[in-house]
């Protein structure tokens, strides 16, 4: 439970390169202008590897993994 992560996009850094949506289409799609729309909620275990890949491959470091819990506390 404590190891649940979700994806967070830095909207200012993101310039719509779209690699994340190519790598993880299960959770990320692009809007009409090429910017990612992330499915809400924690990343399922079997997609963690791809999610990590999406984070590492972002050319502008605009997407990151963060603890799902921290978000819940805030909301």
């Amino acid at each position: 439970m404590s190891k649940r992560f979700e994806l967070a996009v830095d909207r200012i850094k993101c310039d719509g390169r779209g690699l994340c949506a190519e790598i993880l289409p299960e959770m990320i799609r692009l809007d009409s202008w090429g910017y990612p729309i992330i499915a809400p909620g924690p990343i399922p275990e079997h997609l963690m590897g791809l999610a990590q890949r999406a984070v590492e491959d972002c050319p502008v470091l605009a997407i990151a993994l963060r603890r799902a819990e921290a978000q819940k506390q805030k909301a």
Partner: protein
Amino acid sequence: MALRGGSKTYTMEIEETIQNRVQARDAAMRLLNRLTTGAAVSALVGVGILGAVSAHTIPGTAGSSTASTATTSSSSSTTITSSGLQSSTTPVTSSASSAVAVSGGS
């Protein structure tokens, strides 16, 4: 009401495209692995081929004995720059070897 209907068809569209995009992703991942492996193999083969070509184009040609004598002679006189020594011998073989180069390259 238009909104309800609209968003519903839209989500269905998304479900469908997710499947396609997952398949495209998997195909591209396989392609990446194949291309990388292919590049590694061709690079290794390339080292072999280019090494061989390099051996052939060495002055006095392929004979490894000549090459090794060249090494020993130069190692005995390290202070003399070997580049000067070798380049002086090139004009004799250069035209022939460049022809080899062209045929080998194609």
